[in-house]
């Protein structure tokens, strides 16, 4: 499929120059790449094996051997954070994929058809919006028992109406434009116009919303794992590490401090990246959240 841009495109070099002079983008980009790199490296190498429990080394304070200390089973916190990164990223990424994959077509379809179809899609949206991810996760866990898949489904479901709304609002702003009229005069159908003219023009909006939802997904996954509805041990996850740390706050505060900072840095990086993209590609639409 060829995507044709109807709005004059800036050339790629200009965008690159803008990107690397935008502080928000630059900081977000560096942090995000670092976190992703850490996650990838964890597949091949971690300072210590996270599956081996060495009780003799339990709850050691940060030291040259264990930079972030060890947990109550003697596992290296840094290694667990590295493995936890890929878990967080995977859950959030798939959840954004579900939200975009279902939400964007729904929203674009609602905008293209209008009338009763639009109304029906929006009411469906209201319905899903009434179930915060945590409530969906609680219900799914009540049926199938806990697991990482629940977290993905619950967060993914909550992402659907978010993307449907953004896609619909974006598409509604494009439809009255002259070039759409021209396309219709040329005899193109609604589906073809949506694919060729509407979607390419709302890609920025979707990209920015994608980074927001990615960041929210990481927070949500941590929250769900923390209360035991998400990733299950022994798979290390940031939320679960915080749960283990809770009862050991006095004896081993590092068990809580470092996984939490990993979450903060990751989410901060994604949010900065999203802000930056919004600034670079469309200076008018300051991101609102």
């Amino acid at each position, binding site marked *: 499929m060829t995507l044709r841009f109807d709005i004059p495109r800036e050339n790629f070099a200009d965008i690159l120059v803008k990107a690397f002079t935008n502080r928000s983008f630059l900081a977000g980009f560096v942090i995000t790449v670092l976190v992703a790199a850490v996650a990838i490296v964890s597949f091949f190498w971690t300072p210590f094996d996270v599956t081996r429990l060495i009780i003799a080394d339990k709850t050691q304070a940060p030291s040259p051997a264990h930079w972030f200390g060890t947990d109550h089973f003697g596992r290296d916190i840094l290694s667990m954070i590295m493995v936890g990164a890929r878990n967080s990223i995977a859950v959030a990424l798939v959840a954004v994929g579900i939200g975009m994959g279902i939400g964007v077509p729904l929203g674009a379809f609602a905008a293209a058809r209008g009338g009763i179809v639009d109304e029906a899609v929006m009411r469906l949206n*209201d319905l899903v919006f*009434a179930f915060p991810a945590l409530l969906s996760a609680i*219900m799914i866990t009540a*049926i199938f028992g806990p697991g990482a898949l629940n977290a993905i489904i619950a967060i993914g479901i909550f992402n659907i109406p978010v993307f449907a709304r953004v896609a619909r609002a974006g598409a509604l702003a494009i439809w009255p434009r002259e070039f759409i009229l021209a396309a219709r005069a040329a005899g193109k159908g609604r589906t073809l116009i949506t694919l060729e003219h509407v979607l390419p023009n709302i890609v920025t909006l979707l990209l920015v919303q994608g980074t927001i939802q990615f960041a929210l997904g990481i927070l949500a996954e941590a*929250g769900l794992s923390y*209360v035991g509805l998400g990733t299950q041990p022994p798979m290390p996850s940031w939320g679960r590490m915080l749960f283990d740390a809770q009862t050991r706050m006095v004896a081993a505060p590092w068990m*809580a401090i470092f996984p939490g900072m990993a979450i903060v840095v990751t989410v901060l990086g994604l949010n900065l990246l999203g802000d930056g993209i919004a600034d670079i590609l469309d200076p008018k639409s300051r991101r609102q959240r």
Partner: protein
Amino acid sequence: MTVYLLKRLAIALITLVLASMVVFAVLEIIPGDPARLMLGLNASADQVELLRNQMGLNAPLAARYLHWAGGLLSLDFGRSYTYSVPVIELVRERVVVSLPLALIALALSTIIAIPVGLFSAGRHGRAGDTIAMGAAQLGVAVPNFWFALMLIYLFAVWLRLVPAGGFPGWSAGVWPALKSLVLPAIALALPQAAILARVTRSALIEVLNEDYIRTARAKGLPYRAVLWRHALRNAMIPVLTILGLQFAFLLAGTIIIENVFYLPGLGRLVFQAITQRDLIVVESVVMLLVAAVIAVNLLVDLSYAVVDPRLRSRQ
């Protein structure tokens, strides 16, 4: 105006009915027989069948839904499988913890966020704005339950100013009860305040570019008066929208935060119910929270009409 209100009300009711169907359907597809769960493994098939009839489990699907939904309307959620008391009693005991917590957090986040938003918008692009928004950017990234752990470490473990967890109950006096809600409320409120401050600021900046703001300035009104009287009011719509959405997140957040502070609220109730497979309690609490989210969003819709006269005059 009336048409707008009626339409919003109708939408809220339809959403509520659909949501109750979803929750009921989930209850239906859950494997396991509640009657057998209540009687234990040694019960005979006859006993189970008798109880199934008593509990109305053998009635047709539609009849059971209507019976269940009818019960909800009169606040009869059924009986807990494990505690053998009406679910509403369990809920009543817990809601006096969760609801005040959510409301205090909501109030706290609004009290912090609106002035910060005003401050930042008033100094748009200057150092004060950059610092405030940098802090907000950081606040958005902090998970509330981790923030809660850090607060416990600082204020309860180190400084010993407040209890690290637990709830004495309102019968122990308002002050001790409030004292044990302070840290949970702050933990919930600050990350939400960060989001709200950003929204308030960007809504204000947008409004400040409008012609009528220039007119107000041109007729000699001082900047602060313009900011408060003209700009803030017009910026309220996006702020209210986010406030409504935030209430949903606050309720969900309450469930998690209660686990950090060992507060006997709805969140603790729901997690105990999950481990004990007391599904009627799980469904009731979920339904209650969903209803609360829908109700708050309806309130937000209605408040648009109060804030924005244009909506009032339009039909």
